[in-house]
């Protein structure tokens, strides 16, 4: 199974109207080669699942400025005023989701769970439209799985089998997102031969990664 491909070829997997997960935290650990290419192609009507919308000139922040995003499921938009503007103006749907809940929903999507019960958001606007369950006398929200058509992740290193190794705080959402999409494209800083990564150091097993692109990241 050949996984290494070009940026151009990989980006053809992302099409108008798709749901796309993008790794990164304020742009750190974002696959910038991929996000730039998608900005340049002007792919439309995307549902974006990401921790945040970065900054107007950075990562998925550019997609927002380009009006490529119809809906964003994110935990924080404070660093990109354009997201806030479009949200208040009703031009883009923004589902503000607690960061831990966002991570759990992605994990549930990638691991076949029907949902998880979290205490996070009980008694807040996050409750709206959600089922509440009481377990051992404590209230929880039932949060449902998230999956995507494509996940775009960044890793410091991969072997040709797709095994990923992240570095420092660039790991963030990349690990769970790589489990939760029909097609997983990893932009990586370095591609090594199969066998060069110790199996104990693999952070995402290559069996879930479809395509590898050599990129610059961060």
């Amino acid at each position: 199974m050949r996984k290494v491909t070009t940026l151009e070829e990989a980006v053809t997997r992302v099409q108008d109207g798709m749901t796309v997960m993008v790794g990164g935290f304020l742009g750190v650990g974002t696959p910038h080669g991929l996000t730039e290419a998608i900005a340049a192609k002007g792919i439309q009507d995307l549902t974006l699942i990401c921790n945040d919308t970065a900054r107007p000139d950075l990562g998925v922040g550019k997609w927002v400025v380009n009006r490529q995003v119809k809906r964003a499921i994110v935990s924080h938009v404070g660093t990109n005023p354009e997201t806030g503007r479009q949200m208040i103006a009703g031009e883009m749907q923004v589902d503000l989701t607690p960061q831990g809940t966002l991570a759990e929903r992605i994990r549930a999507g990638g691991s076949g769970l029907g949902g998880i019960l979290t205490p996070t958001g009980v008694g807040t606007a996050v409750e709206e439209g959600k089922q509440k369950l009481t377990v051992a006398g404590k209230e929880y929200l039932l949060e449902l799985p998230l999956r995507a058509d494509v996940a775009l992740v960044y890793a410091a290193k991969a072997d040709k089998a797709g095994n990923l190794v992240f570095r420092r705080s660039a790991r963030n959402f990349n690990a769970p997102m790589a489990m939760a999409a029909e097609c997983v494209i990893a932009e990586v800083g370095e591609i090594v031969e199969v066998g060069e990564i110790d199996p104990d150091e693999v952070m995402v097993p290559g069996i879930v990664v479809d395509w590898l692109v050599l990129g610059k990241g961060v």
Partner: protein
Amino acid sequence: MALSSKEIIAKRVALEMKDGDIVNLGIGLPTLVPDFLPADVRVTLHSENGFVGLGPLQEVDADLVNAGGQPAGIIPGAAMFDSLKSFELVRGGHLDVTVLGGLQVDEQGNLANYMVPGKMVPGMGGAMDLVVGAKKVVVAMEHTAKDGGAKILKQCTLPLTGKGVVSVIVTELALIRMTQDGLVLEELAPGVTLEEVQAKTEASLIISNGLKTMPGFE
């Protein structure tokens, strides 16, 4: 030299930590707290973007930022992880203290700090998870809003970050602790009168029998 309001708050918040505590500090004012830790109190800092062992910046590493997206350092013994594990630690009760800013706090221990409808929409980021998960929730904020209006209210009017989650409020004027009976005024900043605090507070305050001047400012 006189301390600024922020420094007074940070200095008093530092006394809420015990040696060995695992602590998460919000963006802004809370990040000043480590500067004021007593010499015999060492805490380990959790950074919700994916590690414990946050430390002073030594050299810029593009893969290593704090939860505000700023270049950060790590101390020996630090451990990196993904966003899932980061919030497993948060929700699972593995943090002793979280320190966050506040827009409003009320008599029920509710906290609002993530949005002003129609205006400011930064999003909750990790705050909703932190306030339900940490053993002690410290709200560190200026006592009143820029327009002089009260922020410590009978009932929050802004969307809540957490319901009944606040442990203690530290402002440049006072320390107010949440108890089963309600908000208890325990300490006044040096030179601040009980009357001034009550005038600037909408919430009913129980005056502690042991009301005293904030320690550490003698």
